[in-house]
């Protein structure tokens, strides 16, 4: 009888051991990146749509306008974000939902309308956006020493993302592909409008 049972018992035991020792991960809490403050800063940008989407929208806008606008955005956005972040880390707290709402609305409408902004105006817009969002990031990142490293991570990632998005959009030649970028802008503006409604939600 034991001989007849052996295959089933062995199979059962093997499956049981496999199940017990190869359990599914318990994901009850978040893990830090474990890669230090610079990568934590980069991860913060990637995981914060309130910052990430306006930055991408600005890159889309600059890409639609052309190479010169794209180059300006590429260098001005990370620099302004870094400066604003350092100012925020020194000044203390200053977080406001209105900044994200305004960024979504203004940039979304500009992208949707393919607004013919001059280089000066786009540069000023980029500097303002970078400084204000950076200020909020810096204000919420604790001591200036730690914040500075995280801000460098954010600025580095912004440079890479802006370069990629601008390069992609500048190369778009087909009319339908440029319209698709503008549709993305309308989605961003729509999300901004909804954020505004959410901010005025009576039982939020």
């Amino acid at each position, binding site marked *: 009888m034991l001989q007849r049972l052996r295959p089933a018992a062995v199979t*059962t035991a093997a499956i049981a051991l496999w199940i017990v020792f190869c359990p599914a991960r318990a994901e009850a809490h978040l893990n830090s990146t474990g890669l230090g403050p610079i990568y934590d800063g980069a991860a913060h940008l990637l995981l914060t749509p309130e910052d990430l989407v306006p930055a991408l929208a600005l890159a889309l806008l600059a890409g639609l306008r052309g190479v010169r606008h794209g180059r300006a955005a590429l260098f001005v956005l990370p620099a302004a974000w870094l400066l604003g972040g350092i100012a925020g880390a020194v000044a203390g707290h200053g977080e406001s939902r209105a900044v994200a709402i305004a960024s979504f609305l203004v940039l979304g409408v500009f992208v949707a309308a393919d607004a013919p902004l001059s280089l000066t105006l786009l540069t000023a817009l980029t500097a303002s956006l970078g400084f204000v969002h950076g200020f909020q990031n810096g204000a919420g990142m604790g001591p200036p020493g730690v914040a500075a490293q995280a801000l460098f991570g954010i600025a580095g990632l912004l440079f890479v993302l802006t370069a990629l998005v601008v390069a992609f959009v500048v190369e778009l030649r087909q009319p339908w592909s440029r319209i698709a970028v503008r*549709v993305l802008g309308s989605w961003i*503006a*729509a999300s901004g409008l909804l954020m505004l*409604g*959410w901010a005025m*939600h009576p039982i939020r």
Partner: protein
Amino acid sequence: MASHMRHASRLLLFAIVVFCLEQALSAHVQRGEAVSFRIGFAHPISGWDHVLAMVAVGLWGAQLGAPAVWLLPLAFPMVMAMGGMLGLMGVPMPGTEIGIAASAILLGSAVLSEVRPPYVIAAAVVAFFAIFHGYAHGAELPEGQNGLLYSMGFVIATGCLHAIGISFGLIHRWLWGQQLLRLAGGGVALAGAFFMWRAFH
């Protein structure tokens, strides 16, 4: 005896599987950024009234051709968001379900008859009904969700439905495709009539 042992080992195996392959408990409110986006994305595609009306916008745009094919999906999300904003703010809007059903009837009929109004009129019609759809999304935002990611989810889902309609509408270049599109429009209008009947019952 051997068969008893076999049953026992199968039962043991079953018990081990049940206890060790843990499943998420879904008895509590789901929260968090990813969940908010998923719920927002699922909202427009979970109701046939929204799905059919959104696809019909894309179909009609494809029938009308450029620039309407781009103008409608460009204008719709922003006007829909205005409706969503009203819903989020708690502004009362009676007859939302009737408006949504009417949108399916009217847009379906437009596709069925392949009516070609001036682009401004087409955009105004679509925009008018977009307010009702947006209001329903905004008013039904579940408590405890991230408003931004929920909003982005449903805006993107709506855009994807338009894209499906436009993609399907590309068959308009063939004669059989034109007939099929008109048939699809008739289907949407019929479904809209059903939604309207349901709105009154």
